[in-house]
């Protein structure tokens, strides 16, 4: 067997060399094509059914569509200083493009990037950049807004519950844009926020949803990574709105799937392919990428059959406006919880302000904790 394998490899190598010299006679002799080694670092399990899995799907898409890359991943890497070792190890092992997909990897990536100038680092959701450290994220706020429209039409108690992991700008943007959509179609509806203070704790996420259902919320939007909040909503005979992936698709029965009104989903694959190609071509430069629905990086999943067609049609018209670049959920007027107009009519909140967003819009019940207060 071993002999067969070795001879096969030798044969293939000869065929490859002969083949490539055969068709590229004029080209100067090139060194054997070295594949670009790409590493992904996830905060959760690669198959968490949520955020990390969405990135993992992106990695697989890249692997399938670019024969010149070799990819791998590390999962369940804790945020903070410990993660630095993971990034340094990949750089030392010859990985030339490393994606870190969680906010808390930021400083670790900054340090690793400083010492490995030939390696390209890409950090999702962060804001610190250098010559070889770029940032990228998607405007999940656009699907959030559309999901808010659906929730506003479907709620009977006018109370929506939102299960959030942390009070970081990324999560606040989601709640704000969701509420903007909600109040557009249902001005008296409110959104109650409960934090789990964890990226991954299914039991607690379910309990958080329960506390919202107890209060009378009849649509539970999930900003956390497990499907637990949606299960609790279904068990209580209410609706859920999923996050990261099409969570209706994972449900076992038609009734369960129907209870998931829609999901806000990530499509990282095409973007990862683009970045890898840029690194291969040598055209990659550091910068910030923040794509929206028009780029296909974010979207909403097919809307549940529980939702009337007229609502779906309305959502689609609003979606078209976003796709055409004629509307964003951060268009003024935006009013904060105290009733003050923060973004005047006719203006749009700047990206920089969105990235540092630290206030809830009117209609949100909940607070943004100040650390140590």
């Amino acid at each position: 067997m071993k002999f067969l394998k070795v001879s096969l490899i030798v044969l293939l190598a000869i065929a490859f060399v002969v083949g490539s010299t055969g068709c590229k006679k004029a080209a100067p002799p090139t060194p054997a094509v070295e594949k670009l080694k790409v590493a992904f670092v996830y905060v959760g399990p690669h198959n968490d059914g949520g955020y990390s899995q969405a990135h993992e799907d992106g990695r697989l898409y890249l692997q399938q569509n670019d024969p010149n890359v070799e990819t791998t991943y590390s999962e369940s890497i804790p945020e903070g200083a410990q993660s630095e070792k993971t990034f340094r190890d990949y750089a030392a092992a010859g990985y030339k493009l490393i994606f870190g997909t969680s906010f808390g990897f930021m400083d670790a990536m900054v340090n690793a990037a400083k010492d490995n100038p030939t390696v390209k680092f890409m950090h999702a959701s962060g804001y610190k950049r250098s010559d070889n450290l770029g940032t990228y994220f998607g405007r999940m706020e656009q699907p959030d807004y559309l999901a808010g429209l659906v929730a506003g039409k479907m709620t009977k108690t006018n109370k929506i519950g939102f299960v959030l992991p942390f009070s970081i700008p990324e999560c606040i943007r989601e709640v704000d844009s969701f509420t903007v959509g909600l109040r557009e179609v249902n001005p008296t509806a409110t959104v109650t926020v409960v934090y789990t203070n964890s990226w991954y704790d299914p039991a607690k996420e379910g309990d958080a949803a329960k506390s919202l259902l107890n209060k009378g919320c009849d649509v539970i939007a999930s900003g956390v990574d497990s499907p637990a909040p949606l299960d609790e909503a279904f068990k209580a005979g209410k609706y859920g709105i999923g996050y990261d992936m099409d969570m209706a698709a994972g449900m076992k029965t038609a009734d369960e799937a129907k209870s998931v009104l829609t999901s806000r989903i990530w499509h990282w694959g095409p973007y990862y392919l683009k970045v890898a190609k840029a690194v291969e071509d040598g055209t990659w430069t550091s910068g910030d990428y923040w794509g929206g629905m028009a780029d296909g990086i974010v979207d909403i999943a097919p809307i549940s059959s529980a939702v009337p067609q007229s609502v779906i049609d309305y959502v689609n018209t609003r979606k078209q406006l976003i796709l055409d670049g004629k509307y964003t959920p951060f268009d003024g007027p935006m009013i904060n919880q105290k009733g003050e107009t923060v973004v005047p009519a006719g203006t749009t909140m700047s990206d920089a302000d969105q990235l540092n967003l630290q206030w809830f819009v009117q209609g949100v019940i909940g607070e943004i904790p100040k650390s140590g207060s």
Partner: protein
Amino acid sequence: MNPTFGSILIKVFAGAVESGTILLLPTLGEVLTERSGVLNLGLEGLMLIGAFFGFLGAMKTGNPYVGLLLGMVAAAAAAAIHAFICVTLRGNQTVTGLALSIFGAGLTSFYGDSWVSQRLTIAIKPMAVPVLSQIPVLGPIFFSQDLIVYAAYILVAIFWFLLFKTKVGVNLRAVGENAKAADAMGVNVVGTRYFWTILGGALAGAGGAYITCCIHPYWLNGITSGKGWIAVALVVFAMWNPFNALVGGFLFGSIEALQLQLQAAGTYINSALLSMLPYITTFVVIIVATVIVRVRHVGTPKELGIPYAREEK
């Protein structure tokens, strides 16, 4: 039509009984294991093993109760490894327990990989107890639950009776207090320690399987997310008494449920602080329990964590 304050509280406590049962089962098992003198810090791993194999069993057989039993058997088998190393080989119980935790997480992630996010069609459903569930306030909180919760009530009573009112209990406690004396009296020290370690493992497995066969009927890696560690602390809280384990389990379930409900009520208390509550309570409780143990000399089995060898002088 807003739900009244009272009706919300009843729902909070009903939920607390459910999540308290996840903690109660492993705590109860560990109380018995530690009473026999064996410290098993591997509860988190055993719960994960129970959760995964319980889920797998329910998937394969279509019956969540059969699944739960399989989860218990799997966790009992893992606990038997702990018993073998700690009782027969007289290995370090702390290290073995920690290894068991890591082993459980690794094993279930490895075999669970292809099962992630798959769901059970039939999960364990609540069954209200006739008559009792009609009692105002207490009925909806304690008697509109599922069979596992009722079984946990009964187990607490059985084990309390067994531990403090029967010969079996006296022997069990003797083995944990003074194995040499127990041995001299003709109690089978090795057999007793094996039995209660394995039974404790089965109960930890039941706690894990209760999550996947009933509360969240799907598999995710690390689905117990630290519940096993809280159970280890709860054993101290319970002062090695099954009845206190029940109180502790439900108390911790309530604290978690209440802190989330406080947030939902729009209370302006830092939610990170609220999330710390169960752990702050753990500190307070352990301090108080330790003082009580010192003063009244109850609880801690004297030879907890100490291997027994007959020939040693």
